[in-house]
């Protein structure tokens, strides 16, 4: 497949790995902040190709992982209402809320449907005029513009039974929170698809304020290895900056049409992140002009939240302070078939990836 196979070429990957081995002069810790990177790194067995003094840790890049139990509880509460169809990406189905999950509610008869796109959810709304269709908006800057386009389309067609429950989040505030939290890092493998929308300039503040290098990275093995090489060079030469490795999809300024659409429909707000608490201006909510699509404005809920399992350290794992193996629950009572925290539920959650694709030398 074009633009995929060429970047998975074994010879190329081996040679990049060789170059990495030749370039290391000390220990390095790089954080990737994208669930797609966590997954790709483990899927292709990247750790088995790297020298031991490179440590890759996972940050809060999986929107499922950073989605709190309260969001799932809210979605479940709406699913129990009459005449409601919940539409969601498959990622959320197994995420545990405080006492249930969308999967369990579906099994118990709730009308919950998996969609591949907000536009699919909108079509369900067109075909079910007597029902309220609530679309669960998860994802970062890559996915939020799609929700924005969908809302605009709903507005254009005067569709009045389509709603959004938004937990869209922004990446840079979380990255800054991690740095300020004191995580010991030498650089970031930056999310290539977020940057395809936003442009690489959103990461400029990181080398400027914190002297950490950032490489905006693609998702194929050659991309990831090339990025690691670029980060090593930045550390060795003490030249932290933002560089684009993924230039076939990322520019400095990004996709301006997508950005305009996003800012037309959404505004930033404070948001709660699993393991971080509230990070100011890190979330997206619908602007006043589009409030009629915000289900929480139309049908407000009062939810009582239960605490997460107190031994669960998803928060520290998301912040890069601990690894899955540091968690007392990991692989003992928390594993993919019985996930206790979101890090284990999501395919790209650090714990799920770690468990499934365990590193083998």
């Amino acid at each position: 497949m074009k633009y995929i196979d060429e970047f998975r070429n074994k010879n190329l990957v081996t040679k990049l790995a060789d170059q990495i081995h030749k370039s290391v002069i000390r220990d390095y810790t790089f954080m990737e902040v994208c669930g797609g990177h966590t997954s790709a790194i483990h899927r292709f067995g990247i750790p088995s190709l790297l020298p031991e003094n490179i440590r890759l840790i996972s940050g809060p890049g999986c929107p499922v992982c950073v989605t709190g139990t309260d969001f799932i509880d809210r979605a479940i509460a709406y699913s129990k209402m009459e005449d409601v169809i919940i539409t969601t990406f498959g990622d959320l189905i197994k995420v545990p809320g405080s006492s249930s999950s969308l999967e369990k509610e579906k099994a118990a008869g709730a009308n919950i449907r998996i969609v591949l796109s907000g536009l699919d959810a909108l079509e369900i709304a067109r075909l079910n005029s007597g029902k309220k269709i609530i679309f669960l908006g998860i994802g970062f800057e890559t996915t939020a513009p799609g929700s924005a386009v969908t809302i605009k389309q709903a507005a254009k067609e005067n569709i009045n039974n389509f709603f959004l429950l938004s937990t869209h989040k922004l990446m840079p505030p979380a990255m800054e929170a991690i740095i300020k939290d004191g995580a010991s890092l030498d650089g970031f493998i930056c999310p290539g698809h977020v940057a395809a929308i936003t442009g690489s300039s959103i990461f400029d503040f990181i080398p400027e304020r914190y002297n950490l290098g950032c490489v905006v990275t693609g998702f194929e093995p050659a991309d990831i290895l090339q990025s690691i090489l670029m980060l090593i060079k930045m550390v060795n030469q003490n030249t932290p900056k933002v560089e684009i490795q993924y230039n076939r999809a990322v520019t400095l300024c990004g996709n301006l049409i997508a950005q305009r659409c996003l800012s037309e429909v959404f505004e930033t707000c404070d948001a709660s992140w699993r393991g971080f608490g509230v990070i100011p201006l890190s979330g997206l909510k619908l602007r006043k002009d589009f409030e009629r699509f915000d289900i929480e404005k139309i049908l407000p809920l009062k939810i009582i939240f239960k605490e997460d399992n107190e031994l669960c350290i998803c928060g520290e794992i998301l912040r890069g302070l601990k690894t899955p193996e540091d968690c007392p629950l990991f692989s003992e009572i928390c594993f993919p078939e019985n996930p206790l925290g979101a890090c284990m539920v999501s395919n790209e959650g650090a714990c799920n990836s770690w468990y499934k694709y365990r590193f083998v030398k």
Partner: protein
Amino acid sequence: MNDFISLNHGSGGKLTHELIEKVFVKRFAMSEPLTDSFIIKESGSTLALTTDSYVVDPLFFPGGNIGKLAICGTINDLAVSGADPRYIAVSFIIEEGFPMDDLVLIADSMAEEAAKAGVKIVTGDTKVVDKGKCDKLFITTSGIGFLNSEIENISTGKRIKPGDKLIINGPLGNHAIAILGARNNMAFRTTVTSDCSSLNHLIRKVLQNCKEILFMRDVTRGGLATVLNELAGMIRCGIIVNEATIPVDEQVRGLCEMLGFDPLFLANEGKVLMVASAGEENKVLEILRSDPLGRYSEVIGEIITDKKELVVLNTSAGGKRIIDMPAGIQLPRIC
């Protein structure tokens, strides 16, 4: 264990194994390891007996229907045990209101498939239940085959040793993708058809010409990953497979990349994993490839001494990682 049955219990992965183990195996005092057919030794004859249920949705899909699936699945469970499938019993649970024309089409498919495979459907049962009490149509089958007792440990792989080779008879995931595409509630189109087929003639050809087949298992729900993990657990050896040699059709690959699926976890209905003695694999490949159902056969890996009971993948990019059993159903994702 969960206090309700979820779809994941039927996906063929870890939860299915747990359900069978905890609810049925001990209660029924079934002997382990569980194999696809139960071998009966009665006055000189060795028989293989198997049973299965079919609840596929939709009932009709590109490449087949629930009836064809039932016959092929039963035949394959017997054939991969080394048995020559002979007789099938079939029972139907039909929902009130089910269209007669559809039932006829399904029955026709079953007759056609049985005739092609040289197997007789000899007895059966039919029940109709009130509307809403079952999802259109469920089919349960039992099958009997005759087995040469010399090869009865083909199900358990007792003779497998390090260095022996793993062979698959063609590309993975087509059945799962055909079903997904036919469900019509996913926004994609594909021309992939199910690989649903009876493998008994293919397997007989191999067994007649090669005495060094040490293990066979059909690769159904739970995918190749499940079979490899089951095998590694049974023989208590490690297994290494090479991603670059595992055949996957382009469209299946494209869908897996887009939806976030692993082809090793996808269901098949016309695939058999064989283990052949080291040195015999090319002979086996030649026999397989001379048949339409084995044209794209490949040697995909081998048994290794270390990494006990683990399945290791040499990825196409050159790294290594472990293949685990799927936890449950794969769901399309955006992240």
